[in-house]
């Protein structure tokens, strides 16, 4: 038995139980499915990272546990500090500004660090942080806050061009500008995954707010235009596509990572080689972006399916919260967070299994990485808060009248004679 099973397992249990108790107290009506699912994913991630530690002789699992502790602390903090998610609507513009500042931070000399060609990290002493992970959450709040106020104007006012109703510039302008700025920064930082994520997020939220499918068509066209332009202009996009089309063209060079991941998945087969029996360390960055390859190799297709189902459950519960939420802001935030989650899972898992070209993103809750883990725990806290509000029974006015008169405070009642 691994010596640190009790240490890791015990601490994990304490964290999860603590989170559960807090949820029961401060958000009693919250969705009961989300926390167990997320805890399962986080625990599996921790186990796999520890296994990779053993192969690579690193100590990432303990760091990940530290980050998880911080994540759960922020999760608890968010639930306590945020009794009602509608409070977030007050920070519509503040969070928008904060998102932009966070996205600019890595560009600052001395603070930003370039890792694997993407300049999306900031270093503070021994810690490095990916501000984009926090920015994506802030952007959801900004979009939701703005759209919920302006949705009627966006949906109704405007001109009809061909078959699409375009809103007035002054309604769409601010949010569009905001999106362009964040996207522009990401393009400059060469972070393809996040660009794709933000674009998809923007499109989904606009569609849900306006209820106009036309936006999806416009967005789709814009996406293809943008993708083609990026393919033409940026060498690194081209090479990503080339690797995707034929990773075996250069199996020891540019295609190495993907080829090794595919060999890993295949080597795992249906039931996997068994934890500790595979060679996940052959895949570069297997502890972060490619952690699913390690799961596929050692735990097999069954485990990969289970992970996908868990992710699917998170998305489904988030969208359910959006459906039953009674306020537009809550609906939009929940949908936005669900979309971010679903797109991120799709982009990264699609990338490592060669369904789509690879773009660097973390696998939520599984991958090693503090920024992602902390941000995702906060996202779950917000989702729980929205579901708590949505599932809370309406105050029963009739019941109040039926309470025992003896229990009620004594009061003087002026009896009016009808005589």
């Amino acid at each position, binding site marked *: 038995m691994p010596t640190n099973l009790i240490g890791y397992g015990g601490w994990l249990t304490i964290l999860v139980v603590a989170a559960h108790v807090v949820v029961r107290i401060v958000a009693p009506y919250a969705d009961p499915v989300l926390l167990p699912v997320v805890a399962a994913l986080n625990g599996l991630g921790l186990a796999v990272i520890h296994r990779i530690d053993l192969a690579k002789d690193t100590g990432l699992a303990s760091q990940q546990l530290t980050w998880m502790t911080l994540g759960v602390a922020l999760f608890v903090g968010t639930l306590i500090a945020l009794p009602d998610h509608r409070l977030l609507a007050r920070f519509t513009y503040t969070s928008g500004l904060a998102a932009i500042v966070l996205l600019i931070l890595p560009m600052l000399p001395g603070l930003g660090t370039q890792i694997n060609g993407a300049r999306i990290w900031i270093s503070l002493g021994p810690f490095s942080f990916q501000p984009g992970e926090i920015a994506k959450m802030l952007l959801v709040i900004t979009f939701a806050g703005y759209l919920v106020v302006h949705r009627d104007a966006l949906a109704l006012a405007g001109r009809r061009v061909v078959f699409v109703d375009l809103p007035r510039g002054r309604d769409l302008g601010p949010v569009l500008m905001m999106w362009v700025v964040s996207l522009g920064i990401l393009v400059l930082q060469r972070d393809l995954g996040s660009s794709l994520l933000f674009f998809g997020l923007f499109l989904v939220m606009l569609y849900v707010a306006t209820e106009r499918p036309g936006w999806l068509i416009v967005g789709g066209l814009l996406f293809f235009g943008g993708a083609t332009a990026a393919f033409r202009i940026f060498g690194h996009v081209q090479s990503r596509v080339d690797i995707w089309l034929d990773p075996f063209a250069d199996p020891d060079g540019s295609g190495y990572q993907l080829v090794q991941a595919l060999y890993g998945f295949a080597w795992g*087969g249906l039931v996997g080689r068994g934890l500790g029996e595979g060679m996940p360390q052959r895949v570069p960055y297997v502890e972060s972006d490619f952690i699913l390859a390690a799961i596929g190799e050692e735990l097999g297709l069954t485990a990969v399916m289970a992970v996908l189902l868990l992710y699917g459950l998170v998305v489904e519960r988030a969208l359910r919260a959006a459906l039953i939420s009674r306020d*537009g802001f809550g609906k*939009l935030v929940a*949908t936005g967070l669900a979309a971010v989650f679903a797109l991120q899972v799709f982009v990264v898992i699609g990338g490592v*299994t060669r369904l789509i070209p690879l773009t660097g993103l973390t696998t939520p809750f599984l991958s090693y990485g503090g920024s992602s883990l902390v941000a995702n725990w906060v996202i779950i806290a917000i989702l729980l808060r929205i579901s708590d509000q949505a599932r809370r029974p309406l105050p029963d006015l009739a019941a109040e009248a039926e309470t025992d008169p003896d229990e009620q405070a004594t009061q003087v009642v002026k009896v009016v004679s009808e005589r």
Partner: protein
Amino acid sequence: MNKPIRAVSIFCMFLFLALMANVTYVQFWKSDDYNTDPRNARVAEASYSRERGQILVGDQPVATSKPSDDRYKYLRVYPEAGARMFAPVTGYLQLGSQTGIERSQNAVLTGEDPQLFVTRLVDLLKGETAQGGNVVLTLDADAQKAAFEGLRDTLGPKGEGSVVAIQPKTGRVLAMASYPSYDPNELATHDSAKASETYQALDGDDREPLLNRAIRTRLFPGSTFKLVTAAAAIESGKYHVGDDVPAGATYQPPGTTHRIGNDGRGQCSPAKIGFATAMEFSCNTTFAQLAVEVGPEKMREQAEAFGFNNSSLLDLQGQVQSVYPTGVDVPESEGGGTRELSLAETAQTGIGQNTVQATPLQMAMVTAAIANQGTLMRPYLVEQVQTAGFDVLRTTEPEVLNDHAVSARTAGELTDLLVATVESGTASPARIDDVKVAGKTGTAQRGDSLCSAGGKPPYAWFVSFAPADNAEVAVAVMIEEAPDRACGEIAGGQLGGPIAKAVMEAVLNK
């Protein structure tokens, strides 16, 4: 806003379904393709971590796995005593590559062969790590030793050569030696830097120690090819063992000014001599004329009946085909295409020159077919496949490759000629007391000039079988280089004869 949220959830469902379908494709449908991809070092590396089956000669392992406590669980070991001797057959196991039996029987040795399915299932149920199966070779340890040490001691440290011995009735390969050889342990070591350094050194060595000359080197077979010529002549019905055959001091084939001589053997000079005499003294003038009389078509058919222009050994990869020319390529400048062999060229093929080329394995097959009353058996190296617990899963059944390479009568007449050659002719160094031995020497000129004229030393061959009337072993010895020997000393009988004798004795003394 609920309608678009429902649409979004359906969209998300499709995203997840796409991921699930794709991952099923990768891990289920494509998994075999990826796992058998030769570039997949992961699979090879995994085989280092599992107990690989043994390769056995008799009941002695010549390749085995022992537990190791470095980065892999098992180290492949080739027992010191026979490592170099068996290396051309066993091959070696290196990270990401294997050769020899290690390669051709990889599925059995790793335990992934379907024959081992039940064993694997039992291992799984017992909770044990699956073990690979064992491969038992047909080799005779004594014959192999005689062959390898014969080459080493006769040729000297700089020599190059090969020996193949076959059991004529079955096709079992009793010995397959190639010299120089290498120590496979040095390539199987887990110290990959050292292994790759050793490989570079061996690969760059001019003497090609990594080459299995028995199946991968083809040279002019020289006079040993006269067996084929004689077989074609007897099969044609024109000549029999007691008949006189044409000879002469020199022979000028039709349509050429080039003359074929006898390298100073005066016994060949009369215009007609006995067939036995021609064979005993290996008269070039006789066999060149016989080949011309038979014609290129019949010569080729006879050579192919013995296995030329074909690959017959299935147990090792990389066998090169021995060649009897089917035609001659005409240069583009002269119109291109191919034409039939001219009579002058046919005359040269009759004495194993021109474009005739054979591997030691091929010459052993020719000899074995004659020894086996004309029936050519498929040579094989894998006698049995066993489980890790030595339970026999499969024993190879001998297979007839050609039941009429020559008729039994022709085979008998050829045997008589070859027995005479050992008793009173050039093949006398292979004589064994109280055993009737049949044999033939061969000394194939390399280039135009002879040793006496300062030319390159020839290739020396020796083929034989014994006992002549009920053969248990057929041997072919090929000597490519023996730089320690004087040029004139390199002749099939002198160098090859004693080696062949030692190998035959090793088999017969059982």
